[in-house]
């Protein structure tokens, strides 16, 4: 049974996801960050879908279970496109967009193929343990990709504050989700890994992205050297 806090989190998630798109439109940056905005629109639609399935079939139904985990997997793959666009922003002056697109396509096909094979092997017994493992792996791939992207930001001394904050919030999101799913995989009976943590982590990305879109001007610059922790200044 869901309480008022759960409903509030549901409503808040939807508002925040739409909020990112509204902020982008207000700042006239919708097309510059098109994949980020499309992801947020997809996430808002999935939130509405979760509510619909919950109302129609119930929280413990198989329909809700399938919809929740499949939409989550699809959204994670959509987030890969966001990472690819951020890669393109960072490497735009080096003219390596074709290479990035090629590598991204390869990665996407690879991830889709492995996921498809995993789902096909387990289609007759789609246990919760399996879907948790699949999500854990998808989020971990996202984390690795974001970490490499962060390495590129530091190496190339990227100074655009907006890009830096978008990448860092994505890194926090992927690592928090990856840790949550890994913890759930290790200790399936830990209640907070399925009730409290996922919706809380889920609200992070729209909150952080709307903050970045709204508060950080496009022309703001930041020295990456200030972000690395060094004991002397």
């Amino acid at each position: 049974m869901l309480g008022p806090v759960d409903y509030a989190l549901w409503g808040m998630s939807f508002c925040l996801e739409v909020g990112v798109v509204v902020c982008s439109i207000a700042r006239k940056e919708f097309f510059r960050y098109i994949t980020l905005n499309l992801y947020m629109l997809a996430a808002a639609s999935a939130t509405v879908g979760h509510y619909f399935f919950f109302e129609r079939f119930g929280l413990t139904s198989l329909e809700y279970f399938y919809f929740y985990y499949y939409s989550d997997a699809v959204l994670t793959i959509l987030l890969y496109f966001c990472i690819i666009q951020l890669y393109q922003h960072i490497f735009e002056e080096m003219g390596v967009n074709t290479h990035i697109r090629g590598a991204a396509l390869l990665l996407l096909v690879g991830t889709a193929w492995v996921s498809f094979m995993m789902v096909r092997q387990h289609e007759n017994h789609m246990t919760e343990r399996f879907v948790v493992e699949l999500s854990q792996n998808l989020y971990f791939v996202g984390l690795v990709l974001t970490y490499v992207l962060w390495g590129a930001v530091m190496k190339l001394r990227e100074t655009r504050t907006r890009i830096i904050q978008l990448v860092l919030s994505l890194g926090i999101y992927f690592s928090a989700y990856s840790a949550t799913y890994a913890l759930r995989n290790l200790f399936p009976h830990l209640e907070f890994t399925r009730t409290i943590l996922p919706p809380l982590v889920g609200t992070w990305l729209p909150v952080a992205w709307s903050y970045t879109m709204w508060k950080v001007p496009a022309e703001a610059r930041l020295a990456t050297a200030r972000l690395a922790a060094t004991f002397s200044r």
Partner: protein
Amino acid sequence: MMAALIFVISVVALLQFFLSYCRSLIAASSRIELSESVREVTGIEDHKVTADDFQRLHQLVHLCPESGGDAMSLRAIGTYYGMLGMLHTPLRGLAPAAAGWVDRERASCSYFAAVALDARISRTRLLLEEQSSNQL
């Protein structure tokens, strides 16, 4: 085994990303000069904002109405300050250089809170001025 490894790597990465994110927020605010009014209110005049000022500034920030969705960044910096506070005492005896760095970071967190307070005071003043001009 694999899940445990993923968990450890994810937690380490989470800490690193969070630290860098907070430092990016702090770096953006460090270039903003504090106004005279906030210096008067907080008693920060000639001397610098210190690490221990954070709690007091944070409380003052919460007395002002929210301005332009800064609550998320304040919460993130509050968490960062709390984490640094936990490191501060044990590091003082073990690694003085690291303890010095932690102290400077905590002072930067205080400065961030002072900038947020400044923004909230300015916004509240503006709203009051608008209100009084509307009444006239």
